[in-house]
Structure formats: structure tokens, C-alpha cells
């Protein structure tokens, strides 16, 4: 019987350790929600910052983050899905394909601040986009690419081979099969991957530090080659660079950013579980 007592103690211990892992997650979310709610108002979300950001709203930062995410999506989605289609439907298992996979694994592992350096070197200076939404979006897109490729490839591979065989037996070409049979089946998985990738891009600060971000710019960007404020960078600025910043505004900004991230996360989870239940194969 002693063995089972030991097992009970062991299981309780593992449960306790798991609790240590998840409890702080709830704590972080809870603290930011409770302290941030007081700052939220229509004005906070839709007004320009005033008095050196100590009053007014965070509208330009919200718009900036949405624009950057949109720019990232425009570049990363076609490249990401194209790359995934190549790996799942075209590539044979050669050394070259292995090299591509290795490249993707390494892209995923490059530190975000190094992406920032690269963006500065290639997009801001070499391509002469200047510190702009374009330069930042391209930098973020490259960082997002491996996430979208891996998730989409996985979704494509999950579609059973029979779908492709039937397409071929009905006289469909390779691309027709991909476009009309495989892609629609894999779409929920691809969308989930895209959302998770964009979520990462929307929340990152380091890659936009030297490529887009404006410290204090109380107007909306005028063109894609304009600088812009962005939520993550704004939170960094007001919590470290501005002395005497009201804590409530900091919490409010953190809450808006957190809400954006969690909402995207929730979307991805819902899409995944909804289609997993409905899937017929």
C-alpha cells in the first residue's frame, strides 16, 4: 500500500508545481485588468496624447499598431502560405528541402532585437525607407514568417492523401487540387497560424525600436513612409522613459495591449476547436 501513498504524494506535488506555473498567469492578467479598468474611457481610446503623454489618450498608438499589423499581414500571409504549400505539396525530401526547413527553424529562433538590427540595416538604411511603417512592417513580417509557415504546413499535411488522389483521378491538375481541395480543408489551421503569428507581431517591441517607432507623435501617420507610435513601444516609453507618469495611464495602456493580444489568442483557439469538432475526417 506504501507505493500508492508515495504516488499520491507525488501527484499532489506535481499538481502543486503546475499550480505554481499557472497561478502567476492569472495574477498578471488579473492585476492588469483590475488596475487598468479605471483608466479606460472613450477619451483614452480615441484621443491624442497631451501634456507629454501624461494626459489624453493613446489613439495614435492603437492606430499605429493596427497599421503595422496590417502591413505585416500583407507581406507575411502570402509568403507564409506560399512557403507552406511549397513544403507540404511540392518539396521532395532532399538535402535542399532539409536546408529550407533548417532555415525556417533558425528564422524562428533569431532574437527579436536582432530582427530590429536587420530591419535597420536593410529596410531603413539600404532600401532608404527611413524609420517608417513600411520598414517596420517588413521587419515584423520576416519575424512572423516562420510561425505562419510551420502552422500552415502542419495544417496542409493534416489533410488526408485521399483528397489529393481523388482530385487527380478526376483529372484535376496539381494546382487545382491544392486550390480547390486541399487549401479549403486546411484553411482553419492556416487561419489559426496566421492569427498567432500576427499576435506575435502586434505585441513585439524590439523589432520596431529602430525601424518605426516614434517616441511622441500626437497625430496620425500621413503615409506608409511616416513614423508612427505603437502600443508596445508606447508602454515601454511611458513606463521607463517618462518620469512622473501616472501609474493609471501605464496600466490602462498595458490593459489595451493585453486585451488585443488575448482577443486574438481567443479567436485562434475558438477557430481551431470549432473546426476540429466539425471536421469529417
Amino acid at each position, binding site marked *: 500500500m506504501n507505493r500508492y501513498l508515495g504516488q499520491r504524494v507525488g501527484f499532489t506535488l506535481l499538481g502543486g508545481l503546475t499550480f505554481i506555473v499557472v497561478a502567476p498567469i492569472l495574477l498578471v492578467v488579473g492585476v492588469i485588468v483590475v488596475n487598468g479598468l479605471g483608466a479606460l474611457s472613450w477619451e483614452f481610446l480615441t484621443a491624442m496624447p497631451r501634456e507629454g503623454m501624461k494626459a489624453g489618450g493613446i489613439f495614435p498608438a492603437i492606430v499605429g499598431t493596427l497599421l503595422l499589423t496590417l502591413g505585416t499581414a500583407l507581406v507575411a500571409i502570402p509568403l507564409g502560405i506560399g512557403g507552406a504549400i511549397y513544403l507540404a505539396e511540392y518539396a521532395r525530401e532532399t538535402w535542399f528541402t532539409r536546408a529550407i*526547413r533548417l532555415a525556417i527553424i*533558425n528564422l524562428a529562433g533569431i532574437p527579436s532585437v536582432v530582427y530590429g538590427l536587420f530591419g535597420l540595416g536593410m529596410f531603413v538604411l539600404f532600401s532608404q525607407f527611413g524609420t517608417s511603417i513600411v520598414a517596420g512592417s517588413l521587419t515584423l513580417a520576416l519575424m512572423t514568417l516562420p510561425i505562419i509557415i510551420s502552422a500552415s504546413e502542419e495544417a496542409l499535411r493534416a489533410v488526408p492523401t485521399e483528397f489529393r488522389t481523388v482530385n487527380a483521378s478526376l483529372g484535376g491538375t496539381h494546382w487545382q487540387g491544392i486550390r480547390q481541395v486541399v487549401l479549403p480543408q486546411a484553411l482553419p489551421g492556416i487561419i489559426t497560424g496566421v492569427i498567432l503569428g500576427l499576435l506575435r507581431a502586434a505585441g513585439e517591441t524590439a523589432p520596431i525600436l529602430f525601424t518605426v517607432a516614434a517616441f511622441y507623435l500626437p497625430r496620425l501617420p500621413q503615409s506608409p513612409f511616416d513614423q508612427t507610435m505603437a502600443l508596445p513601444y508606447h508602454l515601454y516609453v511611458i513606463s521607463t522613459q517618462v518620469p512622473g507618469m501616472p501609474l493609471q495611464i501605464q496600466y490602462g495602456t498595458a490593459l489595451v495591449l493585453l486585451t488585443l493580444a488575448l482577443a486574438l489568442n481567443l479567436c485562434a483557439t475558438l477557430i481551431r476547436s470549432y473546426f476540429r469538432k466539425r471536421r469529417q475526417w
Partner: protein
Amino acid sequence: MSQRTHWSEFFISAVIRVIGFSTIGFVGLIFFFLLQQGAPVLGEVPLNNFFGAQWYPTYNLYGILPLLLGSMMVTLAAIVLALPLGVATAVFVREIAPGWAREILKPLIEVLAGIPSVVLGFFGMTLLAPFVRETLHVPTGLTAFTGALLLAYMALPTIVSVAEDALDAVPKSYRDAALAMGATQWQTIWRVVVPAARSGILTAIMLGMGRAIGETMAVLMVTGNAARMPTTLNSLFLPARTMTATIAAEMGEVAQGSTHYHVLFAIGILLFVLTFFINLAAAPAIFEKRRRGGLR
């Protein structure tokens, strides 16, 4: 088949191939532009200065050793904290927890992966740092340890999910055999399942380390950013400064093309190379997982 379909088919295949090949090009491009901006450092800073122990850019002292050791200290401490927690959580979620608990725990850990690092850094500054200062009775809460604590939690989602995949891949027959021999579930887990999954758990550590060493914002906000050599035992509880934080904090203030600017790019090259090898070490296991079809 009409001529038109034939041509569009050819065109689309070509486009997709080019996109597929371009991923290698991207890694090359990144390395090229880092080199282009960082290479002049070779002619500007003598090696014994560059690998020296003093980082005082205003006095032309560009010793990266305190930054390198700072990064290593914070990363290792984070992994030491995260590894037992991560493996325990993976085992609990995969082997022990009832279905309903799993349905709650897994999305919750995904939430952690989705919290932007600057938000965690903000939390670390405003609440964690004062907490560390008071509980450990240290002069400031902005220490290497505070950074390691945050980093541990940021690495946890990676460690848990990779370790869980590894446990998942252990054949059911192993478990059945152990249980049939009269082992308890506890004994089966620790003497059969976890040892069988150890290569996957090693991958989890590697990827978690890669994540931790490259993390920037949270570390920048909570480690206090003092570039000192961690030579004494209490260094973990004193301010420290990592390579990533140095780049993020100083790049905005340096003149383009100055020596300091080139040195920051050189640190970027070092980070690129470090994470490249960490991921290279983890890559075979990731390939293996894909071949088994164990991707989730």
C-alpha cells in the same frame, strides 16, 4: 486541357517554388546586413578591448564580456527555474490531470505565450521587482534574478509544449508493459515514460534557452542594466545587463556609423550565431518529430 490552364499552372508552381526557396535567402540576407553594419568593428576596436571586462562606450571601452556573462547568467538561472516546473507541468497535464483540468490548463499556458513581453516587463517593474526587493532584502529589486524569474515564465510555454509532445510520442505499449509488471502509475511515469522522452525534453531545454537568451524587452525593464562582471556569488541578486538589452537601450542613442554603432551590430552578430547553433542542436529532434507525424 487548354493551353491557358497549362501556363497558369506552370506560373503558379514557379511562384511557389521561388517563395519556398526564398526562406534560405532571408537567413542569408539577415546575416549579410548584420555583417555589413558590424564588420567595421574589426578595424576599429582591438580584440583585447572587445573581449575585455569593461563596457564603458563613452570611454571607448567596448568589452562585451560583462554583457555575454550577464546574458548567460540570466538565461541559465531562468532554465534552472523553468525546467523542473515545465517538466512537472507537462507530466501533470499529459499523464495525470483529468480531461476537464487539461482543457483549462492548456489554453491557460497558451495565454502566457500570448502575453507581449513588454507587458510582462511592465508587470515585473511595477510589482515583481518591489516584491523581490522586500523578500530578499536587497537594495534594489531590479536584479538578474528578477529577470531570470520573468524569463523562466516566458520560456515555460515552449518547454511545456515541446516536453508534452515528447511524452505524447512515447508508445502506449511502454506504459502498458510497465503497468502489467505491477508498477504503479507513478513508477511508470518516472522510470519508463520520462526516460523514453528524454531526447524530446532536451530539445525543450534547448528551445527554451534560445527563447530566453534572445528575449529583450522584459529583461531590459527588470534587470537594472548595470554592466558588471558576475564574478561574485551574490551577482544573481545584483543588477546585470544582457546583450539584447544593451542593443535595445543604446542603439537609439548612437550616431550611425560610429564605433559604438558597429559594436552594437557586432553584438547582434554574436546573438545571431549563438541562437543559430542552439537551434541547430535542437533541429534534428524537430525533424524527427515531423517524420513521425507527431506535429500538433
